[in-house]
């Protein structure tokens, strides 16, 4: 114990010969202290890099937190009102307080659900074709088409459906027409994300299944899709989130209605983005502005809820170690 205390009081440079020239020709303590300049430069660079990265991160967070904060602060008390989750807006004028958003919530869920019902099977099957079966010209054509489709602006997709559905076929604007436009927007997202997930499945697993005498289609369904399951769910959710807040197709194909409308095929259709748009027009009125913020927050919560559900599904279906 006594030696330790004495040693700790002795300055570093008088420890002894070993301290100055350690074996192996490495620089001693004095040499190290002379070399401290590059060391300090590295430390400075480290600090600078850290500061820049944190600043960039915080900068990126500012709009996100700002938007969320504003929407929550301005919208949250609408969600607590007695009729928000049960009522609709029928017979409620812009400057009236009250009414609910249930019609729009139901409408959005129904429309997105219908969209997913069409887009998810097509998207997943197309991805399976591209990864597992597709060779040559057809596969290249499909892949190219998907690339183009993913670059189509939503308003163009909406106008295309309008031209086919309303102008050519003479059918009415309706929820289902808007759904079809959303399908066009959702398919490329599902195809691309599913494709990436299927490519991640190691070839060895396919070979293992083939070597057991399992037919190719069973291998694809039970091994490949099963292994990629949680990734595919995530991709589908990305697609759902993409179309849930999409507004252009709704403006063109599914005019808003203030009341309940449970028939996708029948005329005007209430949705949350359109409810926001409606009340935005009367922003000068406090009641309408409140409804707008409430609807915005509800839409964000719906997307969040779907994400949570998807994560739970993905968690239970994921690969366990």
């Amino acid at each position, binding site marked *: 114990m006594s030696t330790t205390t004495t040693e700790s009081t002795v300055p570093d440079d008088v420890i002894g010969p070993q301290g100055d020239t350690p074996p192996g020709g490495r620089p001693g303590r004095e040499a190290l202290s002379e070399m401290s300049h590059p060391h300090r430069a590295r430390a400075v660079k480290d600090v600078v890099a850290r500061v820049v990265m944190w600043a960039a991160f915080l900068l990126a967070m500012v709009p996100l937190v700002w938007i969320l904060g504003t929407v929550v602060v301005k919208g949250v008390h609408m969600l607590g009102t007695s009729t928000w989750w049960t009522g609709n807006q029928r017979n409620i004028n812009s400057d009236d307080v009250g009414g609910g958003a249930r019609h729009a919530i139901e409408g959005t869920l129904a429309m997105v659900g219908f969209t997913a019902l069409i887009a998810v099977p097509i998207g997943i099957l197309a991805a399976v074709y591209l990864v597992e079966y597709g060779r040559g010209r057809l596969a290249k054509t499909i892949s190219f088409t998907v690339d183009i489709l993913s670059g189509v602006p939503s308003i163009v997709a909406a106008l295309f459906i309008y031209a086919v559905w309303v102008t050519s076929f003479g059918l009415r604007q309706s929820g289902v027409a808007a759904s079809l436009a959303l399908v066009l927007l959702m398919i490329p997202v599902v195809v691309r994300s599913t494709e990436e997930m299927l490519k991640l499945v190691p070839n060895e697993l396919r070979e*293992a*299944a083939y*070597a*057991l005498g*399992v037919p190719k289609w069973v291998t694809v369904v039970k*091994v490949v899709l*099963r*292994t990629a*399951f949680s990734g595919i769910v995530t991709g589908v959710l990305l697609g759902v989130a993409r179309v849930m807040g999409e507004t252009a197709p709704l403006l063109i194909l599914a005019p808003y209605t203030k009341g309940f409308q449970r028939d996708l095929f029948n005329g005007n259709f209430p949705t949350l983005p359109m409810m926001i748009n409606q009340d935005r027009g009367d922003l000068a009125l406090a009641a309408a502005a409140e409804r707008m913020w409430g609807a915005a927050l509800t839409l964000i919560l719906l997307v969040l809820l779907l994400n949570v559900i998807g994560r739970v599904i993905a968690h239970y*279906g994921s690969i366990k170690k």
Partner: protein
Amino acid sequence: MAKRIDVSDLNVYYGSFKAVEGVSMTVEPRSVTAFIGPSGCGKSTFLRTLNRMHEVIPGGRVEGKVLLDDQDLYAPSMDPVTVRRTVGMVFQRPNPFPTMSIYDNVAAGLRLNGVKNKKTLDGIVESSLKGANLWNEVKDRLAKPGAGLSGGQQQRLCIARAIAVQPQVLLMDEPCSALDPISTLAIEDLINELKSEFTIVIVTHNMQQAARVSDRTAFFNLKATGEPGRLIEVDDTTRIFNNPTQKATEDYISGRFG
């Protein structure tokens, strides 16, 4: 259970590239046949033609004949899926299905082909795991994921999975090259036991391993890169290692080449 394989004048192509040329040989039932030779000489490619796994790779095709007892594996009426149920395969890297438990991995071949009876499955899973010398290590955790086992255990799990579908022939493509010496020993012991029931063909880069486990050895070689691989000679393992007829074989096993 075990069947003889007769190969005559087999050429293997990938697209327009001839990978293996003119192989004729017989693989005896209830024995271990080892394929040795330098990398790229076509021994794995040839092995894969014995259960038509080369067809999984785009452009893979063969000319020539492969008979399993008297059945032509390449007859037009023959379904590759049926071939693979008869001729099983174990790969270089252990590849258990990551989403499945130990039990499900062993049962996979049967389940994916429609066997549902729980009792049958239980019995086969147990006998296969015992057959692969893995039962004692995993019997208390059959519901745990197969990917959680060690590399050597995973490889034995893959062997259990392969023998669960009760094939006639078991092909092994460098089954120990990703394993440590202890696990390798366990697999080699297992191969010795399995040969009483199956015809076994093993590709190996390890000549000591070929000498240890095999009854017969086939030496493959190629003249130069880009040339097709050829079978140089096939004979009893002791003969190949002590008194080969071909100069190239002697050079290879004595380490003067390759």
